Protein backbone atom coordinates (compact mmCIF):
# COMPACT_ATOMS: atom_id res chain seq x y z
CA UNK A 1 0.00 0.00 0.00
CA UNK A 2 2.69 2.42 1.06
CA UNK A 3 4.67 1.48 -2.01
CA UNK A 4 1.78 2.13 -4.35
CA UNK A 5 1.12 5.48 -2.70
CA UNK A 6 4.76 6.40 -3.15
CA UNK A 7 4.91 5.40 -6.81
CA UNK A 8 1.71 7.38 -7.42
CA UNK A 9 3.25 10.45 -5.81
CA UNK A 10 6.41 9.97 -7.84
CA UNK A 11 4.42 9.80 -11.02
CA UNK A 12 2.59 13.03 -10.25
CA UNK A 13 5.90 14.76 -9.57
CA UNK A 14 7.38 13.36 -12.80
CA UNK A 15 4.40 14.59 -14.80
CA UNK A 16 4.51 18.02 -13.21
CA UNK A 17 8.18 18.36 -14.11
CA UNK A 18 7.60 17.16 -17.67
CA UNK A 19 4.78 19.64 -18.19
CA UNK A 20 6.87 22.46 -16.72
CA UNK A 21 9.76 21.64 -19.03
CA UNK A 22 7.47 21.27 -22.04
CA UNK A 23 6.09 24.76 -21.32
CA UNK A 24 9.62 26.12 -21.09
CA UNK A 25 10.49 24.51 -24.43
CA UNK A 26 7.36 25.58 -26.29
CA UNK A 27 6.67 29.03 -24.80
CA UNK A 28 9.24 30.86 -26.96
CA UNK A 29 7.49 29.57 -30.10
CA UNK A 30 4.06 30.61 -28.81
CA UNK A 31 5.37 34.10 -28.02
CA UNK A 32 7.06 34.25 -31.43
CA UNK A 33 3.78 33.52 -33.23
CA UNK A 34 1.67 35.87 -31.08
CA UNK A 35 4.05 38.81 -31.28
CA UNK A 36 4.38 38.63 -35.06
CA UNK A 37 0.72 39.75 -35.20
CA UNK A 38 1.23 42.81 -32.99
CA UNK A 39 2.05 46.42 -33.72
CA UNK A 40 5.68 47.46 -33.18
CA UNK A 41 4.85 49.37 -30.02
CA UNK A 42 2.64 46.64 -28.55
CA UNK A 43 5.32 43.98 -29.10
CA UNK A 44 8.03 46.16 -27.52
CA UNK A 45 6.01 46.94 -24.42
CA UNK A 46 3.79 43.86 -23.91
CA UNK A 47 6.17 41.13 -25.00
CA UNK A 48 4.72 38.57 -22.59
CA UNK A 49 1.10 38.86 -23.74
CA UNK A 50 -0.14 36.11 -26.04
CA UNK A 51 -3.01 38.28 -27.29
CA UNK A 52 -2.14 40.95 -29.86
CA UNK A 53 -3.77 44.23 -28.88
CA UNK A 54 -4.55 45.50 -31.47
CA UNK A 55 -4.01 42.60 -33.89
CA UNK A 56 -1.95 43.84 -36.83
CA UNK A 57 -0.99 42.22 -40.09
CA UNK A 58 1.53 44.89 -41.08
CA UNK A 59 4.55 42.66 -40.36
CA UNK A 60 3.08 39.86 -42.44
CA UNK A 61 2.18 42.27 -45.24
CA UNK A 62 5.86 43.09 -45.49
CA UNK A 63 7.01 39.49 -45.18
CA UNK A 64 4.62 38.26 -47.85
CA UNK A 65 5.53 41.15 -50.13
CA UNK A 66 2.07 42.79 -50.05
CA UNK A 67 3.58 46.05 -48.85
CA UNK A 68 7.17 46.94 -49.60
CA UNK A 69 9.61 49.03 -47.60
CA UNK A 70 12.31 48.84 -50.25
CA UNK A 71 14.78 47.19 -47.88
CA UNK A 72 13.48 43.71 -47.21
CA UNK A 73 12.53 41.28 -49.94
CA UNK A 74 11.28 38.19 -48.13
CA UNK A 75 9.53 36.54 -51.10
CA UNK A 76 12.81 36.58 -53.01
CA UNK A 77 14.80 35.36 -49.98
CA UNK A 78 12.28 32.58 -49.47
CA UNK A 79 12.69 31.62 -53.12
CA UNK A 80 16.50 31.68 -52.77
CA UNK A 81 16.37 29.51 -49.65
CA UNK A 82 14.11 26.99 -51.37
CA UNK A 83 16.16 26.95 -54.58
CA UNK A 84 19.56 26.67 -52.96
CA UNK A 85 18.49 24.15 -50.31
CA UNK A 86 16.76 21.95 -52.90
CA UNK A 87 19.74 21.87 -55.26
CA UNK A 88 22.20 21.24 -52.43
CA UNK A 89 20.00 18.42 -51.12
CA UNK A 90 19.64 16.69 -54.49
CA UNK A 91 23.33 16.87 -55.30
CA UNK A 92 24.55 15.92 -51.85
CA UNK A 93 22.31 12.86 -51.65
CA UNK A 94 23.30 11.77 -55.17
CA UNK A 95 27.05 12.38 -54.79
CA UNK A 96 27.22 10.98 -51.27
CA UNK A 97 25.46 7.78 -52.27
CA UNK A 98 27.83 7.34 -55.22
CA UNK A 99 30.93 7.94 -53.14
CA UNK A 100 29.55 6.09 -50.12
CA UNK A 101 28.88 3.02 -52.24
CA UNK A 102 32.36 3.04 -53.75
CA UNK A 103 33.92 3.36 -50.31
CA UNK A 104 31.76 0.59 -48.87
CA UNK A 105 31.82 -1.95 -51.68
CA UNK A 106 34.04 -1.22 -54.68
CA UNK A 107 37.61 -2.40 -54.28
CA UNK A 108 39.51 0.23 -56.19
CA UNK A 109 43.12 1.15 -55.79
CA UNK A 110 43.49 4.12 -53.45
CA UNK A 111 40.26 3.49 -51.57
CA UNK A 112 41.93 3.65 -48.16
CA UNK A 113 43.51 6.95 -49.06
CA UNK A 114 40.20 8.47 -50.21
CA UNK A 115 38.43 7.19 -47.12
CA UNK A 116 41.18 8.60 -44.93
CA UNK A 117 40.66 12.00 -46.56
CA UNK A 118 36.90 11.86 -45.96
CA UNK A 119 37.47 11.02 -42.29
CA UNK A 120 40.01 13.83 -41.96
CA UNK A 121 37.66 16.42 -43.47
CA UNK A 122 34.89 15.31 -41.09
CA UNK A 123 36.89 16.91 -38.31
CA UNK A 124 37.18 20.33 -39.96
CA UNK A 125 34.74 22.73 -38.28
CA UNK A 126 32.60 24.87 -40.61
CA UNK A 127 33.48 28.17 -38.96
CA UNK A 128 37.15 27.65 -39.78
CA UNK A 129 36.25 27.31 -43.47
CA UNK A 130 34.66 30.76 -43.86
CA UNK A 131 37.76 32.68 -44.92
CA UNK A 132 39.20 29.79 -46.99
CA UNK A 133 35.96 29.34 -48.92
CA UNK A 134 35.52 33.07 -49.51
CA UNK A 135 39.06 33.10 -50.86
CA UNK A 136 38.39 30.19 -53.21
CA UNK A 137 35.12 31.69 -54.49
CA UNK A 138 36.95 34.93 -55.26
CA UNK A 139 39.71 33.08 -57.07
CA UNK A 140 37.24 31.07 -59.17
CA UNK A 141 35.05 34.08 -59.96
CA UNK A 142 32.10 32.45 -58.19
CA UNK A 143 31.73 35.03 -55.41
CA UNK A 144 28.21 36.51 -55.23
CA UNK A 145 26.62 33.93 -57.58
CA UNK A 146 24.20 31.02 -57.13
CA UNK A 147 26.79 28.39 -58.16
CA UNK A 148 29.12 29.89 -55.56
CA UNK A 149 26.49 29.34 -52.87
CA UNK A 150 25.79 25.77 -53.94
CA UNK A 151 29.01 24.10 -55.18
CA UNK A 152 31.18 24.35 -52.04
CA UNK A 153 28.56 22.62 -49.88
CA UNK A 154 26.91 20.37 -52.48
CA UNK A 155 28.42 17.29 -50.85
CA UNK A 156 29.60 16.75 -47.30
CA UNK A 157 32.03 14.34 -45.70
CA UNK A 158 29.35 13.56 -43.11
CA UNK A 159 26.93 12.55 -45.87
CA UNK A 160 29.50 10.31 -47.57
CA UNK A 161 30.37 8.68 -44.27
CA UNK A 162 26.71 8.13 -43.41
CA UNK A 163 25.88 6.56 -46.79
CA UNK A 164 28.91 4.29 -46.49
CA UNK A 165 27.59 3.03 -43.16
CA UNK A 166 24.19 2.33 -44.73
CA UNK A 167 25.71 0.46 -47.69
CA UNK A 168 27.86 -1.67 -45.39
CA UNK A 169 24.68 -3.06 -43.83
CA UNK A 170 23.39 -4.40 -47.18
CA UNK A 171 24.11 -8.14 -47.61
CA UNK A 172 26.85 -8.72 -50.21
CA UNK A 173 24.95 -11.71 -51.63
CA UNK A 174 22.35 -9.34 -53.06
CA UNK A 175 24.87 -7.57 -55.27
CA UNK A 176 26.62 -10.80 -56.22
CA UNK A 177 23.33 -12.23 -57.44
CA UNK A 178 22.79 -9.17 -59.62
CA UNK A 179 26.34 -9.34 -60.96
CA UNK A 180 25.95 -13.05 -61.79
CA UNK A 181 22.80 -12.15 -63.69
CA UNK A 182 25.01 -9.94 -65.80
CA UNK A 183 24.25 -6.49 -64.37
CA UNK A 184 27.09 -3.96 -64.51
CA UNK A 185 28.39 -2.01 -61.52
CA UNK A 186 26.25 1.03 -62.23
CA UNK A 187 23.05 -0.97 -62.80
CA UNK A 188 23.66 -2.98 -59.64
CA UNK A 189 24.06 0.22 -57.65
CA UNK A 190 21.06 2.00 -59.16
CA UNK A 191 18.58 -0.88 -59.49
CA UNK A 192 19.52 -3.26 -56.68
CA UNK A 193 21.37 -1.53 -53.85
CA UNK A 194 19.86 1.97 -53.77
CA UNK A 195 16.27 0.71 -53.30
CA UNK A 196 17.44 -1.31 -50.30
CA UNK A 197 18.97 1.70 -48.54
CA UNK A 198 15.87 3.85 -49.11
CA UNK A 199 15.45 4.67 -45.38
CA UNK A 200 19.06 5.86 -45.35
CA UNK A 201 18.46 8.01 -48.42
CA UNK A 202 15.42 9.62 -46.79
CA UNK A 203 17.40 10.30 -43.62
CA UNK A 204 20.21 11.96 -45.55
CA UNK A 205 17.71 13.95 -47.64
CA UNK A 206 16.05 15.38 -44.53
CA UNK A 207 19.32 16.18 -42.79
CA UNK A 208 20.83 17.78 -45.92
CA UNK A 209 17.77 19.93 -46.50
CA UNK A 210 17.65 20.97 -42.88
CA UNK A 211 21.36 21.81 -42.93
CA UNK A 212 21.18 23.81 -46.16
CA UNK A 213 17.98 25.63 -45.17
CA UNK A 214 19.42 26.64 -41.79
CA UNK A 215 22.90 27.45 -43.15
CA UNK A 216 23.96 30.97 -42.37
CA UNK A 217 27.70 31.51 -41.89
CA UNK A 218 28.75 30.18 -45.29
CA UNK A 219 26.11 32.16 -47.24
CA UNK A 220 27.10 35.27 -45.32
CA UNK A 221 30.61 35.09 -46.82
CA UNK A 222 29.59 33.66 -50.22
CA UNK A 223 27.41 36.57 -51.37
CA UNK A 224 27.09 40.29 -50.78
CA UNK A 225 24.03 41.43 -52.80
CA UNK A 226 20.66 41.31 -51.02
CA UNK A 227 19.21 39.68 -54.13
CA UNK A 228 21.19 36.53 -53.25
CA UNK A 229 20.19 36.55 -49.60
CA UNK A 230 18.45 33.52 -48.18
CA UNK A 231 15.96 33.78 -45.31
CA UNK A 232 18.76 33.24 -42.77
CA UNK A 233 21.14 35.83 -44.23
CA UNK A 234 18.29 38.28 -44.84
CA UNK A 235 16.97 37.93 -41.32
CA UNK A 236 20.44 38.08 -39.78
CA UNK A 237 21.22 41.32 -41.59
CA UNK A 238 17.99 42.88 -40.33
CA UNK A 239 18.53 41.71 -36.74
CA UNK A 240 22.31 42.23 -36.75
CA UNK A 241 22.03 45.81 -37.91
CA UNK A 242 23.00 45.82 -41.59
CA UNK A 243 19.46 46.51 -42.78
CA UNK A 244 18.01 47.47 -39.44
CA UNK A 245 15.59 50.28 -38.67
CA UNK A 246 14.30 50.39 -35.09
CA UNK A 247 13.04 47.45 -33.09
CA UNK A 248 10.57 46.02 -35.62
CA UNK A 249 10.03 42.97 -33.43
CA UNK A 250 6.87 41.75 -35.25
CA UNK A 251 8.72 41.77 -38.58
CA UNK A 252 11.76 39.97 -37.18
CA UNK A 253 9.65 37.39 -35.34
CA UNK A 254 7.42 36.82 -38.36
CA UNK A 255 10.46 36.35 -40.57
CA UNK A 256 12.03 33.94 -38.08
CA UNK A 257 8.72 32.06 -38.01
CA UNK A 258 8.74 31.86 -41.81
CA UNK A 259 12.28 30.44 -41.59
CA UNK A 260 11.13 27.87 -39.04
CA UNK A 261 7.89 26.65 -40.67
CA UNK A 262 9.28 24.46 -43.51
CA UNK A 263 11.69 22.73 -41.14
CA UNK A 264 8.92 22.28 -38.58
CA UNK A 265 6.70 20.62 -41.20
CA UNK A 266 9.56 18.39 -42.32
CA UNK A 267 10.29 17.57 -38.70
CA UNK A 268 6.76 16.47 -37.87
CA UNK A 269 6.38 14.40 -41.04
CA UNK A 270 9.78 12.69 -40.96
CA UNK A 271 10.62 12.81 -37.26
CA UNK A 272 11.58 9.14 -37.18
CA UNK A 273 14.27 9.61 -39.84
CA UNK A 274 15.66 12.77 -38.30
CA UNK A 275 16.02 11.18 -34.89
CA UNK A 276 17.73 8.17 -36.40
CA UNK A 277 20.05 10.27 -38.53
CA UNK A 278 21.24 12.29 -35.57
CA UNK A 279 22.24 9.11 -33.81
CA UNK A 280 23.74 7.42 -36.88
CA UNK A 281 25.81 10.47 -37.66
CA UNK A 282 27.34 10.89 -34.26
CA UNK A 283 27.38 7.57 -32.48
CA UNK A 284 28.97 5.43 -35.16
CA UNK A 285 32.18 7.35 -35.59
Amino acid sequence: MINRYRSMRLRVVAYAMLVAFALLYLAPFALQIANSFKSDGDASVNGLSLVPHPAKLSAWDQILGISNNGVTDFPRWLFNSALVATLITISSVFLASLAGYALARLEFRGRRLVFGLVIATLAVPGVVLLIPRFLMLKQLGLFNTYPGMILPICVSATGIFMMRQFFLQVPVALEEAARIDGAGVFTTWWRVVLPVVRPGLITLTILSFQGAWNEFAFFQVAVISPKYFTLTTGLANIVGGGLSAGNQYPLKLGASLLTTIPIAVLFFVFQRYLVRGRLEGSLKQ
Partner: protein
Amino acid sequence: MTTDPLSDEPAIPNTKGRATPDSSRRRKHRRSPLKRGHNLFGWIFVSPALAILIIFLVIPIILALYISFTNWSGITSPFASAVHFVGLQNYKTIITEPGLGQTNFGTAVRNNFYYVLFVVPLQTALALWLAILVNNKFLKGKSFFRTAFYFPSVTSSIAITTVFIFLFSGAGAVNRVLGLFGITGPNWLYDQNGIITSILASLGLHSAPSWTNFQILGLSLWDWFSGPSLGMCVIIILAIWTTSGTFMLFFLAALQNISEEAEEASEIDGATPWQRFRYVTLPMLRPIVLLVATLGFIGTWQVFDQSFLTGPNNPTMVTPAFLAYQVSFSNFAFGEGAAIAFTLFGLIVVLTLLQRKFVKEDLTK
Protein backbone atom coordinates in the same frame (compact mmCIF):
# COMPACT_ATOMS: atom_id res chain seq x y z
CA MET B 1 29.84 1.24 -32.20
CA THR B 2 32.90 0.83 -34.39
CA THR B 3 35.96 2.32 -32.83
CA ASP B 4 38.21 2.11 -35.85
CA PRO B 5 36.42 3.17 -39.02
CA LEU B 6 39.06 1.56 -41.19
CA SER B 7 38.69 -1.90 -39.75
CA ASP B 8 35.20 -2.87 -40.86
CA GLU B 9 35.85 -3.47 -44.53
CA PRO B 10 34.12 -6.46 -46.08
CA ALA B 11 36.14 -9.59 -45.47
CA ILE B 12 38.04 -10.65 -48.55
CA PRO B 13 38.79 -14.36 -48.84
CA ASN B 14 42.53 -14.67 -48.93
CA THR B 15 43.54 -18.26 -49.45
CA LYS B 16 47.17 -17.81 -50.31
CA GLY B 17 49.66 -15.90 -48.21
CA ARG B 18 50.00 -12.27 -49.29
CA ALA B 19 52.99 -11.29 -51.36
CA THR B 20 53.05 -7.53 -51.82
CA PRO B 21 49.70 -5.77 -51.35
CA ASP B 22 49.79 -4.76 -55.01
CA SER B 23 50.28 -8.18 -56.55
CA SER B 24 47.72 -9.81 -54.28
CA ARG B 25 45.18 -7.19 -55.26
CA ARG B 26 45.83 -7.77 -58.94
CA ARG B 27 45.44 -11.52 -58.52
CA LYS B 28 42.23 -11.03 -56.61
CA HIS B 29 40.78 -8.91 -59.39
CA ARG B 30 41.67 -11.45 -62.00
CA ARG B 31 40.15 -14.25 -59.96
CA SER B 32 36.80 -12.71 -59.25
CA PRO B 33 34.62 -11.83 -62.22
CA LEU B 34 32.13 -10.34 -59.75
CA LYS B 35 34.62 -7.60 -59.01
CA ARG B 36 35.27 -6.72 -62.62
CA GLY B 37 35.17 -3.00 -63.19
CA HIS B 38 35.67 -2.14 -59.51
CA ASN B 39 38.78 -0.11 -60.17
CA LEU B 40 37.25 1.97 -62.94
CA PHE B 41 33.80 2.42 -61.39
CA GLY B 42 35.29 2.97 -57.94
CA TRP B 43 37.04 6.05 -59.24
CA ILE B 44 34.06 7.18 -61.35
CA PHE B 45 31.83 6.96 -58.26
CA VAL B 46 34.11 8.86 -55.87
CA SER B 47 35.51 11.44 -58.29
CA PRO B 48 32.72 14.06 -58.20
CA ALA B 49 32.53 14.11 -54.40
CA LEU B 50 36.30 13.93 -54.08
CA ALA B 51 36.75 16.85 -56.50
CA ILE B 52 34.33 19.01 -54.48
CA LEU B 53 36.09 18.18 -51.20
CA ILE B 54 39.50 18.95 -52.69
CA ILE B 55 38.53 22.17 -54.49
CA PHE B 56 36.34 23.65 -51.75
CA LEU B 57 37.91 22.22 -48.63
CA VAL B 58 41.49 20.99 -48.94
CA ILE B 59 42.88 23.63 -51.31
CA PRO B 60 41.10 26.57 -49.60
CA ILE B 61 42.52 25.52 -46.23
CA ILE B 62 46.04 25.46 -47.65
CA LEU B 63 45.45 28.84 -49.33
CA ALA B 64 44.09 30.34 -46.12
CA LEU B 65 47.05 29.02 -44.16
CA TYR B 66 49.25 30.91 -46.61
CA ILE B 67 47.06 34.01 -46.20
CA SER B 68 47.57 33.87 -42.43
CA PHE B 69 51.26 34.66 -43.12
CA THR B 70 50.47 37.66 -45.34
CA ASN B 71 48.89 41.11 -45.07
CA TRP B 72 46.14 40.42 -47.66
CA SER B 73 43.26 42.92 -47.55
CA GLY B 74 40.68 40.74 -49.30
CA ILE B 75 40.25 43.18 -52.18
CA THR B 76 42.99 42.31 -54.67
CA SER B 77 44.04 38.80 -55.63
CA PRO B 78 45.94 37.20 -52.74
CA PHE B 79 48.85 36.71 -55.15
CA ALA B 80 49.05 40.36 -56.24
CA SER B 81 52.37 42.14 -55.77
CA ALA B 82 50.93 44.39 -53.05
CA VAL B 83 50.43 41.35 -50.82
CA HIS B 84 53.48 40.77 -48.65
CA PHE B 85 54.65 37.77 -46.75
CA VAL B 86 54.85 38.85 -43.11
CA GLY B 87 55.92 35.62 -41.44
CA LEU B 88 54.42 35.03 -38.02
CA GLN B 89 53.37 38.67 -37.61
CA ASN B 90 49.60 37.96 -37.63
CA TYR B 91 49.98 35.28 -34.97
CA LYS B 92 52.15 37.63 -32.90
CA THR B 93 49.53 40.36 -33.21
CA ILE B 94 46.82 38.22 -31.67
CA ILE B 95 48.87 36.20 -29.19
CA THR B 96 52.11 37.82 -28.01
CA GLU B 97 52.23 41.53 -28.87
CA PRO B 98 50.37 43.89 -26.52
CA GLY B 99 47.75 45.85 -28.44
CA LEU B 100 44.17 45.90 -29.64
CA GLY B 101 44.52 42.69 -31.66
CA GLN B 102 45.73 40.79 -28.63
CA THR B 103 43.11 42.27 -26.28
CA ASN B 104 40.29 41.51 -28.70
CA PHE B 105 41.46 37.93 -29.17
CA GLY B 106 41.96 37.45 -25.43
CA THR B 107 38.48 38.85 -24.75
CA ALA B 108 36.92 36.55 -27.35
CA VAL B 109 38.70 33.53 -25.86
CA ARG B 110 37.59 34.59 -22.37
CA ASN B 111 33.97 35.01 -23.55
CA ASN B 112 33.92 31.62 -25.23
CA PHE B 113 35.70 29.98 -22.30
CA TYR B 114 32.87 30.89 -19.94
CA TYR B 115 30.34 29.80 -22.54
CA VAL B 116 31.99 26.36 -22.70
CA LEU B 117 32.36 26.19 -18.92
CA PHE B 118 28.63 26.70 -18.35
CA VAL B 119 27.07 25.11 -21.43
CA VAL B 120 28.83 21.73 -21.48
CA PRO B 121 28.03 20.52 -17.94
CA LEU B 122 24.54 22.06 -17.88
CA GLN B 123 23.43 20.76 -21.27
CA THR B 124 24.78 17.29 -20.46
CA ALA B 125 23.01 17.20 -17.12
CA LEU B 126 19.75 18.60 -18.50
CA ALA B 127 19.81 16.18 -21.44
CA LEU B 128 20.29 13.24 -19.08
CA TRP B 129 17.57 14.54 -16.78
CA LEU B 130 15.08 14.95 -19.66
CA ALA B 131 15.94 11.49 -21.01
CA ILE B 132 15.29 9.89 -17.64
CA LEU B 133 11.96 11.70 -17.28
CA VAL B 134 10.85 10.75 -20.80
CA ASN B 135 12.09 7.17 -20.44
CA ASN B 136 9.75 6.47 -17.52
CA LYS B 137 7.93 3.30 -18.54
CA PHE B 138 4.63 4.29 -16.91
CA LEU B 139 4.52 7.56 -18.78
CA LYS B 140 1.75 8.37 -21.23
CA GLY B 141 2.30 10.89 -24.01
CA LYS B 142 5.98 10.04 -24.18
CA SER B 143 6.35 11.00 -27.84
CA PHE B 144 4.75 14.40 -27.27
CA PHE B 145 7.31 15.33 -24.64
CA ARG B 146 10.19 13.92 -26.67
CA THR B 147 9.08 15.98 -29.67
CA ALA B 148 8.69 19.13 -27.58
CA PHE B 149 12.20 18.82 -26.15
CA TYR B 150 13.84 17.94 -29.45
CA PHE B 151 12.08 20.49 -31.65
CA PRO B 152 14.18 23.60 -30.78
CA SER B 153 17.34 21.88 -31.97
CA VAL B 154 16.14 21.39 -35.55
CA THR B 155 15.26 25.06 -36.09
CA SER B 156 17.56 27.66 -37.61
CA SER B 157 19.96 29.17 -35.09
CA ILE B 158 19.44 32.61 -36.64
CA ALA B 159 15.65 32.32 -36.24
CA ILE B 160 15.82 31.06 -32.68
CA THR B 161 18.43 33.63 -31.63
CA THR B 162 16.12 36.33 -33.02
CA VAL B 163 13.34 35.03 -30.77
CA PHE B 164 15.67 35.07 -27.75
CA ILE B 165 16.82 38.61 -28.48
CA PHE B 166 13.16 39.57 -28.32
CA LEU B 167 12.45 37.57 -25.15
CA PHE B 168 15.41 39.13 -23.33
CA SER B 169 14.89 42.70 -24.55
CA GLY B 170 14.51 45.50 -22.01
CA ALA B 171 10.72 45.23 -21.68
CA GLY B 172 10.59 41.69 -23.05
CA ALA B 173 8.85 38.60 -21.77
CA VAL B 174 11.63 37.55 -19.39
CA ASN B 175 11.76 40.89 -17.63
CA ARG B 176 7.94 40.91 -17.48
CA VAL B 177 8.01 37.58 -15.69
CA LEU B 178 10.71 38.87 -13.32
CA GLY B 179 8.51 41.92 -12.77
CA LEU B 180 5.73 39.66 -11.49
CA PHE B 181 8.09 38.79 -8.64
CA GLY B 182 8.97 42.41 -8.04
CA ILE B 183 12.38 42.17 -9.69
CA THR B 184 13.51 44.88 -12.07
CA GLY B 185 15.19 42.95 -14.87
CA PRO B 186 18.48 44.14 -16.38
CA ASN B 187 19.04 45.15 -19.98
CA TRP B 188 20.35 41.66 -20.67
CA LEU B 189 21.87 41.89 -24.13
CA TYR B 190 23.66 45.18 -23.54
CA ASP B 191 25.01 44.31 -20.11
CA GLN B 192 28.81 43.92 -20.18
CA ASN B 193 29.58 43.31 -16.51
CA GLY B 194 30.83 39.86 -15.65
CA ILE B 195 28.57 38.13 -13.15
CA ILE B 196 31.46 37.26 -10.82
CA THR B 197 32.63 40.88 -10.86
CA SER B 198 29.06 41.97 -10.08
CA ILE B 199 28.81 39.55 -7.16
CA LEU B 200 32.16 40.75 -5.78
CA ALA B 201 31.01 44.35 -6.18
CA SER B 202 27.85 43.63 -4.21
CA LEU B 203 30.13 42.24 -1.48
CA GLY B 204 32.03 45.50 -1.45
CA LEU B 205 35.00 44.65 -3.69
CA HIS B 206 34.71 47.34 -6.32
CA SER B 207 38.17 47.66 -7.82
CA ALA B 208 40.74 45.13 -8.87
CA PRO B 209 43.40 44.30 -6.28
CA SER B 210 46.89 45.02 -7.60
CA TRP B 211 47.98 41.38 -7.77
CA THR B 212 45.44 40.84 -10.55
CA ASN B 213 47.19 43.26 -12.89
CA PHE B 214 49.18 40.40 -14.36
CA GLN B 215 48.27 40.14 -18.05
CA ILE B 216 47.48 37.04 -20.13
CA LEU B 217 46.53 37.54 -23.81
CA GLY B 218 46.10 41.24 -23.16
CA LEU B 219 43.64 40.78 -20.30
CA SER B 220 44.39 41.18 -16.61
CA LEU B 221 43.62 38.29 -14.26
CA TRP B 222 40.76 40.42 -12.93
CA ASP B 223 39.21 40.46 -16.41
CA TRP B 224 39.78 36.75 -16.87
CA PHE B 225 37.94 35.99 -13.63
CA SER B 226 35.05 38.36 -14.37
CA GLY B 227 32.70 35.52 -15.38
CA PRO B 228 30.29 35.70 -18.32
CA SER B 229 28.33 38.92 -18.82
CA LEU B 230 24.54 38.84 -18.55
CA GLY B 231 24.50 39.13 -22.36
CA MET B 232 26.63 36.02 -22.64
CA CYS B 233 24.32 34.31 -20.13
CA VAL B 234 21.45 34.75 -22.60
CA ILE B 235 23.46 32.91 -25.27
CA ILE B 236 24.39 30.26 -22.71
CA ILE B 237 20.73 29.71 -21.80
CA LEU B 238 19.86 29.60 -25.50
CA ALA B 239 22.52 26.97 -26.21
CA ILE B 240 21.45 24.77 -23.31
CA TRP B 241 17.83 25.09 -24.38
CA THR B 242 18.47 24.16 -28.02
CA THR B 243 21.06 21.39 -27.70
CA SER B 244 19.76 19.47 -24.68
CA GLY B 245 17.05 17.95 -26.91
CA THR B 246 19.60 16.46 -29.30
CA PHE B 247 21.69 15.01 -26.52
CA MET B 248 18.55 13.75 -24.78
CA LEU B 249 18.11 11.44 -27.81
CA PHE B 250 21.61 10.04 -27.27
CA PHE B 251 20.79 9.25 -23.65
CA LEU B 252 17.38 7.84 -24.57
CA ALA B 253 18.95 5.41 -27.04
CA ALA B 254 21.45 4.36 -24.39
CA LEU B 255 18.83 4.03 -21.66
CA GLN B 256 16.78 1.74 -23.86
CA ASN B 257 19.80 -0.53 -24.19
CA ILE B 258 20.23 -0.93 -20.46
CA SER B 259 18.65 -4.26 -19.73
CA GLU B 260 15.53 -4.18 -17.65
CA GLU B 261 16.86 -7.18 -15.81
CA ALA B 262 19.69 -5.20 -14.31
CA GLU B 263 17.20 -2.61 -13.11
CA GLU B 264 14.69 -5.10 -11.83
CA ALA B 265 17.34 -7.11 -10.03
CA SER B 266 18.42 -4.04 -8.13
CA GLU B 267 14.78 -3.21 -7.42
CA ILE B 268 14.27 -6.61 -5.82
CA ASP B 269 17.45 -6.06 -3.81
CA GLY B 270 15.62 -3.17 -2.21
CA ALA B 271 17.52 -0.32 -3.79
CA THR B 272 15.83 3.08 -3.71
CA PRO B 273 15.27 4.81 -7.06
CA TRP B 274 18.21 7.10 -6.31
CA GLN B 275 20.52 4.20 -5.45
CA ARG B 276 19.37 2.40 -8.59
CA PHE B 277 20.22 5.45 -10.66
CA ARG B 278 23.53 6.11 -8.91
CA TYR B 279 24.90 2.55 -8.85
CA VAL B 280 23.24 0.83 -11.82
CA THR B 281 22.12 3.30 -14.49
CA LEU B 282 24.79 5.98 -14.27
CA PRO B 283 27.83 3.66 -14.51
CA MET B 284 26.27 2.06 -17.59
CA LEU B 285 25.73 5.48 -19.17
CA ARG B 286 29.31 6.54 -18.54
CA PRO B 287 30.51 6.17 -22.17
CA ILE B 288 27.56 8.23 -23.45
CA VAL B 289 28.08 10.93 -20.83
CA LEU B 290 31.68 11.13 -21.99
CA LEU B 291 30.66 11.24 -25.64
CA VAL B 292 28.08 13.98 -25.08
CA ALA B 293 30.48 16.03 -22.98
CA THR B 294 33.28 15.84 -25.51
CA LEU B 295 31.00 16.52 -28.49
CA GLY B 296 29.88 19.52 -26.44
CA PHE B 297 33.45 20.67 -25.85
CA ILE B 298 34.10 20.68 -29.59
CA GLY B 299 30.79 22.26 -30.65
CA THR B 300 30.84 25.03 -28.07
CA TRP B 301 34.09 26.49 -29.42
CA GLN B 302 32.39 27.11 -32.77
CA VAL B 303 29.72 29.65 -31.78
CA PHE B 304 29.23 31.97 -34.71
CA ASP B 305 25.59 32.69 -35.61
CA GLN B 306 24.59 33.85 -32.12
CA SER B 307 27.65 36.04 -31.85
CA PHE B 308 27.02 37.53 -35.31
CA LEU B 309 23.63 38.81 -34.15
CA THR B 310 24.66 40.11 -30.73
CA GLY B 311 28.43 40.67 -30.78
CA PRO B 312 28.42 44.00 -32.66
CA ASN B 313 26.45 45.57 -29.76
CA ASN B 314 28.29 43.88 -26.93
CA PRO B 315 32.02 43.01 -26.94
CA THR B 316 31.47 40.45 -24.19
CA MET B 317 29.47 38.35 -26.67
CA VAL B 318 32.12 38.20 -29.39
CA THR B 319 33.53 34.68 -29.87
CA PRO B 320 36.81 33.79 -31.64
CA ALA B 321 34.86 32.37 -34.63
CA PHE B 322 32.99 35.66 -35.05
CA LEU B 323 36.10 37.75 -34.33
CA ALA B 324 37.89 36.02 -37.22
CA TYR B 325 34.99 37.03 -39.48
CA GLN B 326 34.79 40.58 -38.14
CA VAL B 327 38.52 41.24 -38.41
CA SER B 328 38.50 39.92 -41.99
CA PHE B 329 35.27 41.21 -43.47
CA SER B 330 34.82 44.47 -41.53
CA ASN B 331 38.44 45.53 -40.96
CA PHE B 332 39.81 43.88 -44.12
CA ALA B 333 42.67 42.32 -42.17
CA PHE B 334 42.28 38.87 -43.70
CA GLY B 335 45.74 37.75 -42.63
CA GLU B 336 44.93 38.42 -38.99
CA GLY B 337 41.45 36.88 -39.39
CA ALA B 338 42.94 33.73 -40.91
CA ALA B 339 45.44 33.55 -38.04
CA ILE B 340 42.55 33.66 -35.54
CA ALA B 341 40.68 30.97 -37.49
CA PHE B 342 43.72 28.68 -37.56
CA THR B 343 44.45 29.19 -33.87
CA LEU B 344 40.83 28.20 -33.19
CA PHE B 345 41.20 25.27 -35.58
CA GLY B 346 44.27 24.08 -33.67
CA LEU B 347 42.36 24.25 -30.42
CA ILE B 348 39.44 22.25 -31.85
CA VAL B 349 41.76 19.62 -33.37
CA VAL B 350 43.46 19.13 -30.00
CA LEU B 351 40.06 18.74 -28.34
CA THR B 352 38.91 16.29 -31.03
CA LEU B 353 42.02 14.15 -30.58
CA LEU B 354 41.55 14.19 -26.82
CA GLN B 355 37.93 13.13 -27.33
CA ARG B 356 38.87 10.23 -29.59
CA LYS B 357 41.44 9.09 -27.06
CA PHE B 358 39.17 9.30 -24.03
CA VAL B 359 36.11 7.77 -25.65
CA LYS B 360 38.13 4.93 -27.12
CA GLU B 361 39.89 4.26 -23.83
CA ASP B 362 36.61 4.25 -22.01
CA LEU B 363 35.03 1.84 -24.44
CA THR B 364 37.89 -0.63 -24.27
CA LYS B 365 37.78 -0.68 -20.49
